[in-house]
């Protein structure tokens, strides 16, 4: 529906896509106005296989009063470490965060677009999306990446959010995992991990997980599990005390919303974990 009474829009004004009422999705607007900016605007010829950096092992753990999501810092390209201090966990809005595993470049672009989409919706509508709405939006973006995934550029996120409408505030932290086709799965067992080191991380969490832990306890469990993943998976990086590169940890609680733990706190937790493993 155009902003004009005579059926054509004025020549020097913004194109009609800007004035379409009823659409509060930034992704849909980009598709109409600038489709080349979408992550799925990548033409991959048949049978191509691109070498690109991959990021790995994200863990998410619920605790009493919230949820936590943490990721290691290594990005690999084949046998080479492409980046030592990559950030793979991002705060996407006040009550949600996403960690990514898979092709780093595409994944970061998807998370960036996701965060802008959430904020865009909130500005247009005046209220935030519900947690399920946010999880569904992310699912649609992963679905759009399926062609690239088949060419070897898969992206698999892990979504953690605080449900402000949950009946029990102690159990309001929620984890949603995805597969490469965009399928979304609610995680009810309290923890989840994605990436090449996820099996090792989940085995560790099977013994370390405590649903009534506080944020500090949950962070400790997460860093322990990332350490175990790094121990057995070459594509996952452990805490680097020499360079002071530690996992990125984001906690989401009612009081503070989604916050990235400071470098000092993460360093303290990681160094304690490393000390505990000393023989």
């Amino acid at each position, binding site marked *: 529906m155009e*902003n*004009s*009474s*005579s059926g054509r829009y*004025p*020549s*020097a*004004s*913004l194109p009609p*896509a*800007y*004035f379409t*009422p009823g659409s509060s999705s*930034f992704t849909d*607007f*980009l598709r109409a*106005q*600038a489709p080349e*900016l979408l992550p799925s605007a990548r033409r991959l010829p048949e049978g191509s296989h691109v070498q690109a950096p991959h990021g790995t092992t994200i863990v998410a753990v619920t605790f009493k009063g919230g949820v936590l999501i943490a990721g290691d810092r290594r990005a690999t390209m084949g046998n080479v470490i492409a980046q030592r201090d990559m950030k793979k966990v991002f705060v996407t809005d006040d009550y949600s965060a996403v960690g990514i595993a898979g092709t780093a470049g595409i994944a970061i672009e998807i998370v*960036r*677009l996701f965060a*802008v989409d959430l*904020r*865009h919706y909130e*500005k*247009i509508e*005046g209220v935030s999306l519900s947690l399920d709405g946010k999880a569904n939006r992310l699912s649609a973006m992963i679905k759009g990446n399926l062609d690239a995934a088949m060419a070897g550029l898969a992206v698999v996120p892990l979504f953690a959010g605080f449900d402000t409408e949950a009946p029990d505030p102690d159990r309001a932290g929620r984890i949603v995992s995805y597969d490469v086709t965009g399928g979304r799965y609610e995680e009810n067992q309290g923890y989840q991990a994605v990436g090449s080191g996820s099996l090792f991380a989940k085995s560790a969490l099977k013994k370390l997980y405590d649903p009534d832990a506080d944020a500090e306890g949950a962070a400790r469990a997460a860093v322990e599990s990332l350490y175990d993943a790094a121990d057995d998976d070459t594509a996952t990086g452990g805490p680097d005390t020499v360079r002071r590169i530690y996992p990125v940890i984001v906690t989401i609680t009612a009081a503070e919303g989604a916050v990235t733990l400071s470098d000092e706190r993460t360093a303290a937790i990681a160094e304690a974990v490393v000390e505990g493993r000393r023989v």
Partner: protein
Amino acid sequence: MTMPLYASPEQILRDRSEYARKGIARGRSVVVLRYADGILFVAENPSSTLHKVSEIYDRIGFAAVGRYSEFENLRQAGIRFADIRGYQNDPRDVTGRSLANVYAQTLGSIFTEQIKPLEVEICVAEVGHLPEQDTMYRLTYDGSIVDEPQYVVMGGQAEATTTALKDLFSDGLSLADAVGVAVRGLSSGSTSTGNGKPDLLDRAKLEVAVLERDRPRRAFRRIVGAALDAMLPGEPAAEEDVSTSPTSEKGGPATPAKDVNLPPNDDKA
């Protein structure tokens, strides 16, 4: 009435201006002013859900008067413009100036090319990292754009409010003082005050928001409820009667009531 065979362009544009001005004067006013820590928006708005003041981007705010459907459409277009610029480049590359220019071009085109102009007047405000970098742009229905230094008054009886603000406004006000100045200014131009009605607009009729210079990410913040009450100016006794005044214009049933057991306003002088 027969359509004239020929109407001069001046006549056509003059008629359109008249039409737009009348539409804007029929509505309620909005005041945008600078204070020590940023930019304050105060709108006379009885509705708590249909907003006249809104966030466009991290440090850019939008206020409008006139026809709601039209300025709501412009508001959404502005948000899309800012978000696509910020996404393509970087959030720091989105400026109030570029947005104001786009609005000016859009409004100007619609004014000259469409049969009916948009009956809106809008203000685009950007809070800078330093007080000298704050900007407020006023855009009128015909695409004129003005960079205002201290305050912007739009809609309704704007002259009465502007006159009041000339005396009340000073640079570097605190937030509470700035709210007081704005509410007093709006109240002197409002049709819901004076003549047996309370002298000042109360919380239920106001929409207040700020762009705060030092907020880390998104500068825009609405001020509602008790936080707003604390900043409203006013004669201590008069404030309580306002909520049950039978002569007050009611925008909608959704606004929360204050203490409802007070006698109606007519009984008091």
